[in-house]
Each structure stands twice: as structure tokens, then as C-alpha cells.
């Protein structure tokens, strides 16, 4: 199916007539344009008219004055004697240009440009070693003076002696001493400058994001230039993207800026719509001189160094990480987050957190993690994700995983044991039980039909046809003496049992071993075993043989 464009229809009279604001802008733009103006300058003037209407349509329409006066305020001409705003002359950057420094500030109360709060104007004066010449700003709206007024407010950088020309003025809605710690808190007020503004600064309809960007320095900030308009995000929040970051705004936190690779990772994960949600902090230092982090509604993104890859920790991991001391604790920084088989594993410089499907988050120590990684996927000892915290069982460490355990030998070597062996082993107490700790990792026996785990007090065999069988003592010694699983006896089909006669017996695929009370071990082949049964004795596994029936049809 294709969708064809609707045929054009003649516009109605109402539709043909543009809205009044458009007509006013057009008319005033034409009037302002005059003859001989370049298209760029003409469009610039029209834009100012549009801004003036957007900012104060009634005031602009009814009160005398130019559109520029509405946008840039009183005394915006060069001859008015005031100094231009930095963003006007500094490529949009609301920062002190090179060769200037913050030299003082004043406050404007109840500013409409700061949502009714105080607005601060910070003078950037020429650095004593720099040069500049007095001129008018090359802007049709903010034409104020640049580097002309040799004047100083005197609350910033008082280690710099003397008075030099004011190059330009920075505007903030945050206190100057927060903007630059080199400024002190001596308040000077000049409400007569209340209307002063520039096209490159937020207007009266500014949003929290606009003001945040302004206070960071606009294009002179770490964010760079805006790449999107301000947009509505999830749950009524707002955001705007920039070359090197984002600003998010929510009622509960105000506007927060996040930049660099942390913001890039947040974007890749889906931004505010991701599990992380909105930031609740800005980029904050970890405190070790290297790392930074941003905390979000649903977790934290951690960055060890500038060149490292940021790691996003969902809250269920992050909360645990923070309670363990965060990056300065025993774990160090997160180094990776991997989703695997319905679970997640977060690795740190020293250790890991794992969460298997349906399980809680548990910590895995580095050596345990390495032990699991020595076994490839598909191997019977590939145990998956940890499901319980590590415990000490006897003198051995033990941790349960999805498909087995990791424990250590008496010598301390850690290795995983798959469920086939781990479950029966744990059933009798694991390393602290009667069978004792393992001697070595499990091995494949009988041509791969079973696996064997040698333990301090015996050996555990597991296979599809035999289940789990444990042999120990003289029976095991005799078994191994007879060739073990690779010998004629094959695999054990019973555990060692004690008969009423005091014998210890175990049966095998190819026979049995009977150890008399005096310690004499007898290895019996099938035939021997059958003979032993025919003598009326119990079977090697301790069961009584059935009475033989005559062959059918035998008379």
C-alpha cells in the first residue's frame, strides 16, 4: 500500500491570512530592513522583532521603542556608555574572553531574566598584561561599549591590583562566588540595570535549562553549542542536547548538566527513558583525584579516568557498591557490566557483583571469578552466576552458583564444580562434611561417561547412567587398584554399604568389591558376584538376591 499526498486545495480566506504576529513581524521587518540591507542583517532584524513580540507582545505593540530595546533593554546603544555583554562579543560564550578576568560584580534584585530571583552581572576587565582598544560591539541589538570603561567593582580577584577597562559583562542567575570562587560576597546592587540584556542571553521567558546553560557559560561552557531544541522527556521532564552533553530539568532537582563520556553512555542506554532515568546530580568528583560520577534516579554512571569507559550501574548494584565504599572501597571502580543468560555480572577492579535471574545481588571475589572463567561455556563445571554470598565451610571457601559451586582444595586452589558433583557433595556438608575438601578439580572418566571428584576422604562419581556414587576407604583403594573407572569394574553403581556381617561392599558395572572386617579386599567380577549371590549371601550393595526361578517352560 502506498500513501499518496493529498491534492492541494485552495486555502480559505482565514487560512490565507497569516496570524497577526507573523504579519507584524513581516511588516516591521520590512520597515527595519529598509534599502540596501543584506539578507543576513535583514533576517537578524526580523528575528529581533520576533523575539520582542514573543517576550512582551503587549508591551512591544503598545509602547514606543524599538524591538532591540525590548530585547536588549535600556542603554543598548554605544553612546549610552554601558559595557556590552560578553556573549555579544565572545561568539556566544557567556564567559570572560581570553585576556580578561572577573574583576567585580553587582546584583539586580527580582530580575525577570532569572525567574524573579536575583541576577548577577560580572565585569570582565582587561588583564593587566593584555591589550584591547575601545570600540562599540558589532551587534545591531547590544551595541554597548567594549573595553572602554576603566572601572572596577572590586569583589573578584583582589590579588590583582589596579583598575583596567571592562571588556564585557557576564550574566548569571547563580551567585558570583559560586560561578567563580575568586569572587567574594560583598554585595553591590544596581537595579537601574534591570532591563539590560542581549540577544544571546536568555530572555524573560527563559526556562530552567536556558538559565543553567547561561550560568555554565553557554557556548563557552563544557557543553558547547546546542544541537537540539529543548524537548519534553519522560514523566514530564525536559532536556536539551549539546555538542558535549545535556541539560535535564525536573521539578524536584531543577536543571542539571551532564557532559562528556558519561552523558554519551546515558544517551546510548536510552537517556531519561532508560533504567537510569534522569540525573539527580551533575558530574561530581569521586574524591580520589581521578574519577567522576553522575547519579541517576535508577543508578550511577562511574568513570575511573577520562580515557576510561564509563560504567552504568543499575541501582540494585549501585546501592550495594556504595555501601561497600564505592570506588574508594575494596572493590575499586566498575570495569564492566555484562548481561548473560538472564542475569547480570558487574566486574570491578577488585571483584564483581552478580545477579542471576530470580536471585539477589551477590558479591564475587576476584579469585573466585577467575576460577569460573577458566572453564569454558558448555563444560560441566561452567557454573554460571553466583547465587549466594561466599561462605567459609570448614577451612575452605565456598560459594554457590547457578549450576554448581566454587570451592578450594586443601592447598587453597579455587575451582568450580558442576551441579552433578556439587549437589551430592553439598548434601553431605561440602568441604566441612564427612567427605572433606576436594583434592583437585573434577575429571572426566570412563571415556566421558562420568566425572570423578577426588575428596579428602574419598571420591565422588557422577554420570548419567550411575547417578552420584561415593566411594571411600579400602573399597576405593581396591577400586583404584583394580584400574578404577577405566578397569574391568567400570563405574560404581552403588555407594559403599556396610553389611550385617561387617563387610563393606560396593557394586560396579562390571562387578563388586567386598572388604572383609579384617581389611581384606575382594574384587569380584560379575560372575564372582553372581556366585556370591547364589551362595545365599547378600549382594555387594547389601540387598538380598531374589530366589532364582526356573526357566519358563521348564518342567
Amino acid at each position: 500500500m502506498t500513501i499518496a499526498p493529498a491534492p492541494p486545495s485552495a486555502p480559505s480566506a482565514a487560512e490565507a491570512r497569516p496570524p497577526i504576529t507573523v504579519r507584524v513581524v513581516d511588516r516591521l521587518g520590512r520597515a527595519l530592513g529598509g534599502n540596501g540591507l543584506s539578507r543576513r542583517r535583514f533576517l537578524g532584524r526580523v528575528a529581533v522583532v520576533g523575539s520582542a513580540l514573543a517576550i512582551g507582545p503587549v508591551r512591544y505593540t503598545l509602547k514606543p521603542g524599538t524591538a532591540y530595546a525590548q530585547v536588549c533593554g535600556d542603554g543598548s546603544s554605544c553612546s549610552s556608555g554601558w559595557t556590552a555583554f560578553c556573549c555579544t562579543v565572545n561568539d556566544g560564550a557567556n564567559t570572560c574572553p581570553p585576556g580578561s578576568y572577573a574583576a567585580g560584580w553587582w546584583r539586580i534584585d527580582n530580575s525577570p531574566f532569572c525567574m524573579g530571583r536575583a541576577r548577577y552581572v560580572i565585569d570582565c576587565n582587561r588583564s593587566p598584561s593584555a591589550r584591547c582598544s575601545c570600540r562599540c560591539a558589532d551587534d545591531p541589538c547590544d551595541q554597548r561599549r567594549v573595553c572602554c570603561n576603566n572601572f572596577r567593582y572590586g569583589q573578584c580577584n583582589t590579588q590583582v591590583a589596579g583598575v583596567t577597562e571592562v571588556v564585557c559583562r557576564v550574566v548569571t542567575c547563580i551567585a558570583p562566588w559560586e560561578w567563580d570562587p575568586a569572587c567574594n560576597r560583598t554585595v553591590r546592587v544596581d537595579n537601574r540595570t534591570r532591563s539590560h540584556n542581549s540577544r544571546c542571553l536568555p530572555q524573560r521567558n527563559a526556562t530552567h535549562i536556558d538559565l543553567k546553560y547561561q550560568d555554565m557559560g553557554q557556548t563557552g561552557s563544557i557543553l558547547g553549542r546546542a544541537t537540539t531544541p529543548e524537548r519534553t522527556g519522560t514523566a514530564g521532564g525536559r532536556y536539551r542536547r549539546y555538542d558535549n552533553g545535556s541539560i535535564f530539568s525536573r521539578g524536584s532537582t531543577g536543571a542539571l548538566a551532564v557532559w562528556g563520556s558519561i552523558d554519551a553512555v546515558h544517551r546510548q542506554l536510552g537517556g531519561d527513558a532508560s533504567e537510569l532515568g534522569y540525573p539527580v546530580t551533575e558530574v561530581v568528583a569521586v574524591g580520589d583525584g581521578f574519577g567522576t560520577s553522575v547519579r541517576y534516579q535508577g543508578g550511577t554512571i562511574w568513570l575511573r579516568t577520562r580515557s576510561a569507559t564509563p560504567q552504568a550501574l543499575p541501582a540494585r548494584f549501585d546501592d550495594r557498591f556504595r555501601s561497600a565504599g564505592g570506588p574508594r572501597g575494596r572493590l575499586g571502580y566498575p570495569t564492566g557490566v555484562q548481561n548473560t543468560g538472564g542475569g547480570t555480572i558487574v566486574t570491578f577492579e577488585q571483584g564483581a557483583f552478580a545477579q542471576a535471574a530470580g536471585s539477589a545481588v551477590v558479591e564475587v571475589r576476584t579469585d573466585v571469578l577467575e576460577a569460573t572463567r577458566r572453564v569454558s561455556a558448555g563444560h560441566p563445571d561452567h557454573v554460571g552466576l553466583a547465587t549466594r554470598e561466599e561462605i567459609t565451610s570448614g577451612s575452605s571457601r565456598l560459594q554457590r552458583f547457578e549450576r554448581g559451586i566454587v570451592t578450594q582444595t586443601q592447598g587453597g586452589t579455587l575451582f568450580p564444580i558442576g551441579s552433578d558433583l556439587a549437589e551430592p557433595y553439598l548434601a553431605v556438608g561440602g568441604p566441612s562434611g564427612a567427605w572433606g575438601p576436594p583434592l583437585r578439580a573434577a575429571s572426566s572418566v570412563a571415556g566421558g561417561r562420568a566425572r570423578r571428584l577426588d575428596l579428602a576422604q574419598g571420591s565422588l562419581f557422577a554420570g548419567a547412567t550411575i547417578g552420584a556414587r561415593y566411594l571411600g576407604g579400602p573399597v576405593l583403594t581396591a577400586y583404584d587398584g583394580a584400574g578404577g573407572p577405566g578397569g574391568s569394574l567400570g563405574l560404581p553403581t552403588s555407594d559403599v554399604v556396610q553389611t550385617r556381617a561387617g563387610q563393606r561392599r560396593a557394586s560396579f558395572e562390571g562387578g563388586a568389591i567386598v572388604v572383609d572386617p579384617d581389611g581384606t579386599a575382594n574384587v569380584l567380577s560379575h560372575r564372582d558376584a553372581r556366585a556370591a549371590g547364589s551362595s545365599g549371601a547378600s549382594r555387594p550393595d547389601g540387598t538380598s538376591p531374589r530366589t532364582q526361578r526356573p526357566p519358563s517352560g521348564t518342567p
Partner: protein
Amino acid sequence: MQLHGHGFQADLPRGWEGTIRREPVAEPVDETTDAATGDGAGEATGDGAGEAADDEAAPEGRIGAAAAPAAVTAPPVMHLATFALPGQRGDFGSGAVDLMADEDAFVALLEYGPEEADTPLFAAQGLPRKLDPRAFSNRSLQRAMRKQSGWQHFFTEGGRAFCLYVVLGDGGDANRQVRRVEEVLAQVTIEPAAALEGSR
């Protein structure tokens, strides 16, 4: 007429009026906050006719009652002028200097935090009593205005940091106007910080 408060004293010659004021330190939170309208708040005034001057500066209760960051400081500002000072004016005289006639002069003596005393910017010692007319310039103004000329000087006196800012209505007549400013500066005394501490 005498003007005093916040460690300033001035016997104003005839033809001068002056005020000493401190801005409320609170940052306003909305447009309805009364304390937010700083200009004129806490002002003591006197005129040159020799009437008794109100020597009380900003009501301390009002300042103290404002929910302001404790560390914000609003040291006093003394304005002296040969013309009627408007109620709303900036600390460096914006709004007032607009009203100056050619023969008028405006003097602002602004105090800074005591921690600034003797820093490089405030390294000069003592309130200058003699001024050099040649130091005045139409470039040395907060806001360049036709015919006006200005001069600014940061200094420390008695352990207190100050800025003296003088505007002449007609820079072309600086010699005569400077003498007039010197007359009023000769009547200004600044109490040392130690004395102020003792009186608190």
C-alpha cells in the same frame, strides 16, 4: 550637617547632601519579597542645609531577619552629592549621575569585607584628601556619560577596605570641581575596624 553611621562620619559643607546605607543581604526569592528591593533600604539621609541628619543606617532587624546565606556581606556605602540624590540608585551612583548638572559632583565611598584589607587591590593606605584633577577621565566611569569624568581609588584605612569613586559633572572644569570634592573629603573620617568591633 553631620552624617555618621557604620564607622563613617562626615561634616558636610553647605551644598552637599549624603546618605549612608547598607543593602539587605538576603537574596530575594520572588518579586513580592519586600526586602528584595534593595535600593533605598536602610538609608540615612541628610542635606546640606544643616538640618539634623538621621544617622541610623539600615535597620539591623530587617537585615538579620532576611533568610540570607550567612556569609554574604553587605558593607555600608556612603553617597555624597551636590545635588538631590534619587531614592533608587546603584551603589556606584547609576541613576544619580544621570541627574548631575555640569557643576555637580558625586562621591561614593564603598566599604568591602575586612578580609580584603591590604590585599593588592586595596594596598594603598588611607582615604585620599588631595586629588589630582589630571587623574580624572571620561573613561574612568562606570558608565561613560557626556562631559562627565571620574576617578576610582581602592585603599585600606584602619584595617577596613574601601573604594572611593568620584564623578564630576564636567570634566572640563575638573580643577574647580576637584577642590570642591576635596573640601567634603576633608570632613570625612573613618573609624578603625578595631573601634567598630569594640562598639558592637
